[in-house]
């Protein structure tokens, strides 16, 4: 099975062809917004971080910035920094160049003489870069080049019953074709990590699955939270969930049935052709999606029960619900109605094939509803408060 994509100079294959206007910190975010607003085919996002962060938090921010620049959906990047932030321009440029050799320009607001002088130069550079990008033609590539992120949010009973298993079957199909599927949301593994760990290909991968869960729990305990206590909640039990294992399996099931071949830390660069992999991300939707996209996922499938608007600046997000009432109310935001699976679970294989076709169609250039509406929700995971 093939799709039409853009070959990058670093060998990776993208499904969009945008220029990223990358703010290195919160202090550069508005200047970046002004630049992006002047040039078609650019994308940017509000970077809340990049300064006043402890080293472990700064690493998360750097990895998301470098990962977005390296994501193959991006033709090239224009970095804009203030000048005095923690994420210094040379550090950001070095982090990007460790991941990719794609086109890169940089502007420092305090050196250029303020926002307007910076914007003048950066708009010109962006205009040049999008024109270069526009010369590229889509070429045919096997789906083994795709890294597919998975996410669930605004869940209800139909998520665990139908839409997460649907995503799981779709991941199985992609993995069997040589592609990569990413299971995320470490907080949702808690209680079923022993079941997930059994699926690790090697003892080292099994140990890593335990490690990321225990690390997350330890971080939550520092602020007095116990994710196992009171779980499943009375509301979960009233909804039909009997044990924490059952609740967590409903989420984990969107990774499908194949062995886990790798465990990546948040926003670290993933390799194509790996099979099923895990990334350590929060359950929080925008920051989990951002981590996978920074890791190189060109596309994300997202199941929802209640209906959410989630998009991403760099990668299209295909949203799915199996709740027919939600699809009826939220079809402006949700791409795929999978509610046929509630009454006809035997249709799973056919619906999963259709979802894989939707993934390929989106890779070929079909806009998702969140792309058409310009939804660029964005968050970067954090370990602790600002300093």
């Amino acid at each position, binding site marked *: 099975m093939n799709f039409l994509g853009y070959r990058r100079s670093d060998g990776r294959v993208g499904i969009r062809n945008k220029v990223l206007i990358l703010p290195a910190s919160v202090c550069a975010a508005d200047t970046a917004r002004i630049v992006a607003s002047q040039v078609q085919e650019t994308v940017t996002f509000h970077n809340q971080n990049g300064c006043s962060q402890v080293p472990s938090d700064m690493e998360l921010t750097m990895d998301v910035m470098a990962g977005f620049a390296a994501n193959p959906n991006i033709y090239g990047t224009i970095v804009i920094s203030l000048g005095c932030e923690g994420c210094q321009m040379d550090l950001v440029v070095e982090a990007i160049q460790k991941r990719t050799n794609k086109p890169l320009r940089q502007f420092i607001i305090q050196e250029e003489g303020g926002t307007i002088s910076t914007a003048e130069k950066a708009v010109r550079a962006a205009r040049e870069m999008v024109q270069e990008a526009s010369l590229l033609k889509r070429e045919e590539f096997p789906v083994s080049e795709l890294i597919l992120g998975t996410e669930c949010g605004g869940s209800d009973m139909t998520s665990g*019953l139908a839409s997460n*298993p649907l995503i799981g079957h779709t991941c199985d199909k992609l993995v069997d074709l040589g592609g990569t599927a990413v299971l995320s949301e470490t907080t949702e593994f808690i209680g079923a990590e022993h079941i997930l760990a059994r699926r690790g290909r090697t003892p080292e991968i099994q140990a890593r699955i335990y490690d990321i869960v225990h690390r997350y729990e330890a971080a939550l305990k520092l602020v007095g939270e116990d994710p196992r206590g009171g779980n499943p909640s009375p509301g979960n039990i009233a*909804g039909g969930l009997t044990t924490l*294992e059952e609740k967590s399996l409903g989420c984990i099931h969107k990774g499908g049935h194949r062995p886990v071949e790798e465990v990546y830390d948040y926003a670290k660069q993933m390799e194509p052709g790996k099979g099923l992999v895990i990334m350590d991300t929060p359950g929080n939707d925008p920051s989990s999606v951002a981590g996978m996209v920074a890791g190189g996922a060109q596309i994300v499938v997202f199941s929802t029960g209640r209906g959410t608007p989630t998009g991403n600046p760099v990668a299209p997000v295909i949203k799915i619900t199996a709740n027919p009432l939600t699809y009826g109310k939220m079809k402006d935001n949700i791409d795929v109605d999978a509610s046929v699976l*509630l009454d006809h679970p035997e249709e799973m294989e056919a619906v999963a094939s259709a979802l894989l076709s939707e993934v390929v169609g989106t890779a070929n250039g079909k806009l998702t509803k969140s792309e058409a509406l310009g939804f660029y929700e964005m968050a970067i995971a954090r370990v602790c408060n600002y300093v």
Partner: protein
Amino acid sequence: MKATVIDEKDNVAVVLGAVKAGEEITWVKGGAPFTAPALRDVPVYHKIATAQIPKGQPVVKYGEHIGIAAEDIQVGDYVHVHNVLNNREEL
């Protein structure tokens, strides 16, 4: 009332509507249709047993163990916190 079997290894199914005791429940497992009367009232999206689960044996959903039977569970019986125990398994 229809019930959904998520994985062929499962011994429970999720009912797609509220069920009254005695009402016929139908499900498909491994391509074959099954039917059994509900032994009790079951709320929508809760579970019924699709196989006998002897006391102490695992309750299986998503192809994995979600707990163990606290008592002998019959086909068509309501499966929930009243007859399932948490049983944390380590590798």
